[in-house]
């Protein structure tokens, strides 16, 4: 059962990579990489159960955090051309 779930996750990761290579425009690519990161979290968790070492779940938590921060950071970078500084605009302009 767990092997079947791993196979489904691998196929989905390949499909997301195909969309990341094909996808016109930057938003399709960012979306595909986001899906790939979420599937990586699931894959690490399921692999921990397959190998009988559930300590892998810590790595999964780390991946979940880094994935979300990376998506928001890339969106900020493509919009503002800067990661740190808040540009002088009105309040609703926020990523």
């Amino acid at each position: 059962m767990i092997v079947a779930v791993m196979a489904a996750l691998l196929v989905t990761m390949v499909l997301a990579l195909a969309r990341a290579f094909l996808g016109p425009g930057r938003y399709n690519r960012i979306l595909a990489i986001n899906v790939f990161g979420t599937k990586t979290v699931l894959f690490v968790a399921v692999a921990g159960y397959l190998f009988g070492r559930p300590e892998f779940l810590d790595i999964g938590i780390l991946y979940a955090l880094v994935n979300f921060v990376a998506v928001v950071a890339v969106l900020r970078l493509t919009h503002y051309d800067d990661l740190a500084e808040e540009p002088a605009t009105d309040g609703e302009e926020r990523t």
Partner: protein
Amino acid sequence: MIVLDILSAVLLAAGALFVLSGGVGLLRFPDFYTRIHAAGITDSAGAGLILLGLLLRTPSWETGIRLLIIMLFLALTGPTASYVLAFAARRDGVPIWRAGDRRR
């Protein structure tokens, strides 16, 4: 125990089905906004079902708590990432696909 194993297998199979359908939708849907729908399916339904299925076969309670933490993070960050992506694309002027348009 056998009941828990069967229930866990059903949940894992349903999660794998959701993840696969989301992946196919990510490749086949015609434009960006419809692809967000497919990605959201894999983020919420697929991940939640697979992690619930794993939760039913945890050996110890520390592992269960880690699984619950992962579920909480994914439930918080998945919809937020989808919203931020859709907001940024809309502000950037990505056009919306209508029926009969060319795929892109």
